[in-house]
């Protein structure tokens, strides 16, 4: 009963007072008609970048990892920075789908599909980097427990192996979650399809979904359980990524704050990427009624919250370094802020801690060009955070005789640029061929979906 009364008082989640059929039209037609000109331009650029990525990978596999700037003492350079960057971005989707679902934040329905897709594509980009970073890509299967001719097994005591399991489990679970969510909407597309091939292909992927309530019952239960499973999983993945650093004894890495701090940073960067993509997509596809300014404002609040958490963690690290009274630890942090890489540190600080503070003001939170700019700044800042953690900590550790300065090579830069090509190409294909908004869920949150909506009308 509480449900029915609350609808009339709350601000609507979807504006425009659209009927069910109008909602279907609004979303489904983009997967059916020819895409706008801008789409062709965008995919042209992104596939060129993707081609560049493939060339870079081939060049690196042929020549070895020496083509990168990684060298003693900085053995983990850009590839690991890029890996953590992409994994971090890949956290927003599952956070929106799973955690906001459990908290009954029904505004998530408009953005969860695209955010989940973004997650999956970001994790694909992330998985790429450690795969090529091992140097001998042809033996990457050694990281998996597959019986082999040497009778040897992976080293389960290593955080790097935990990472293999964490990130691949996360990828598979996110993919399942996304696909389960897609099934009813693929059925909608199937029932609208005119051509024979389209009907067959969508018929296979939608599994013969009929919208039966006997099916919805199991479906909703499975979705709830997947959300419950994905919630601890999403928190664990970046924790395990942080173990790669925290379990070692390098000053600046060996800290217990890493897991929560990495998770907050991941959510922060992921939400920024969602804002970047959604601001463009809602405009280009004319779905401002579905992804409203209220949605963007809520995401900006989360960006403000997580950005401040990350900034708090930066300051806490400094405090703990002082409080520990360990000289190496103290030096590591003073060197971050004042050493040869101070520029990177201050880019990180200003983009991650200072820039999002503008979102304290409601007017600025609802300003689309401003939030777009901030979201880009946050992504730059979060890339630099991983650069700061990885490179600055390694370049000067215990022995001054082994200090060095890391410089990336053109292959580093081009590979990273190429990973954006992979990400954007996949995302553009998603926008073209799949329903970009979770239709069945959006229909479920409009007031007409409530069976008691009609009681009030008749009485």
């Amino acid at each position, binding site marked *: 009963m509480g449900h029915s009364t609350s609808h009339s008082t709350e601000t609507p989640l979807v504006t425009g007072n659209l009927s069910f059929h109008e909602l279907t039209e609004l979303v489904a037609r983009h997967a059916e008609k020819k895409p706008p000109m801008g789409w062709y331009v965008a995919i042209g650029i992104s596939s060129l970048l993707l081609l560049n990525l493939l060339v870079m990978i081939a060049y690196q596999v042929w020549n070895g990892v020496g083509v990168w700037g990684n060298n003693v003492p900085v053995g983990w350079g850009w590839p690991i920075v890029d890996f953590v960057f992409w994994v971090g971005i890949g956290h927003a989707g599952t956070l929106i789908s799973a955690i906001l679902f459990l908290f009954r934040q029904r505004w998530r329905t408009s953005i969860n599909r695209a955010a989940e897709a973004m997650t999956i594509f970001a994790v694909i980009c992330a998985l790429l980097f450690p795969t090529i970073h091992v140097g001998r890509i042809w033996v990457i299967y050694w990281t998996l427990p597959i019986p082999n001719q040497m009778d040897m097994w992976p080293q389960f005591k290593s955080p790097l192996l935990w990472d293999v399991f964490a990130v691949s489990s996360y990828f598979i679970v996110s993919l399942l979650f996304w696909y389960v969510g897609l099934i009813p909407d693929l059925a909608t597309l199937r*029932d609208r399809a005119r051509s024979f091939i389209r009907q067959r292909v969508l018929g296979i992927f939608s599994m013969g979904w*009929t*919208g039966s309530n006997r099916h919805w019952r*199991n479906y909703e239960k499975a979705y709830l*359980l997947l959300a419950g499973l994905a919630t601890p999983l999403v928190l664990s993945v970046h924790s395990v990524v942080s173990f790669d650093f925290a379990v070692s004894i390098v000053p600046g890495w060996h800290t217990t704050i890493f897991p929560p701090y990495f998770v907050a940073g991941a959510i922060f960067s992921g939400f920024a990427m969602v804002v970047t993509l959604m601001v463009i997509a809602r405009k280009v596809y004319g779905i401002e009624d579905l992804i409203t300014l209220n949605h963007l404002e809520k995401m900006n609040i989360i960006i403000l919250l997580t950005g401040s958490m990350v900034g708090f963690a930066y300051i806490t690290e400094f405090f703990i370094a002082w409080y520990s009274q360990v000289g190496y630890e103290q030096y590591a942090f003073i060197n971050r802020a004042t050493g040869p890489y101070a520029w990177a540190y201050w880019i990180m600080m200003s983009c991650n801690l200072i820039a999002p503070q503008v979102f304290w003001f409601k007017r600025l939170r609802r300003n689309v060009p401003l939030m777009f700019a901030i979201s880009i700044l946050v992504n730059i800042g979060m890339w630099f955070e991983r650069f700061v953690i990885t490179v600055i900590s390694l370049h000067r550790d215990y022995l001054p005789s082994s200090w060095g300065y890391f410089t990336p090579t053109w292959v580093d830069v081009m590979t990273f640029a190429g990973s954006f090509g992979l990400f954007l190409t996949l995302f553009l294909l998603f926008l073209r061929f799949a329903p970009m908004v979770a239709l*069945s*869920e959006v229909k479920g949150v409009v007031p007409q979906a409530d069976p008691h909506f009609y009681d009030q009308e008749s009485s």
Partner: protein
Amino acid sequence: MKKLLAQIKASMGIYESEPVYGLLAEFADPGALLHAASQVREAGYRHFDVHSPFPVHGMDKAMGLGNSLVGFFTLGGGITGFALAYWLQWWTGAVAYPLNISGKPFFAIEPSIPIMFELTVLFAAFGAVAGMFALNGLPRPHSPLFYSRNFTRATDDAFFLHIAASDKCFDLEETRQLLADLGGYHVELLAAQE
């Protein structure tokens, strides 16, 4: 045995009735559908189902469906994943190829927790999805419901109630009358003639 199988299939929404499959009626809105479903159940029907573009709140109760069993599949999956991770790390580390790495024990719980956790979640998710498909009898690309041209709107904006001919209360005229009385329109006979 055959009866049990038919019962299980009916719980998935698969009814064995040839050549007449059942009657399909459209309703105006989720409220009318909810009302119709509870009335159809009251009239004694069991082999019936409603089809809507989104799950209708309160429909499980109206149709008299209990809690979904997906949870048990998920639990089974989770236990499997946990056991697999435990066994894998213990057997490879302590039995198959014990390797002394900086004097650490060949197997200990503490460093094994992350992978136990990940595989528990992974297999529980497999269980949830596989269980959902199994309980729904999906994939089922050919359903007799698709004989109805009107039914393509079930995934768009229309609300349907379908009573299967396999129901013991099913009577072509009476059932048709009941659906019409409840406010159903476009009442269609689904039969495998095409």
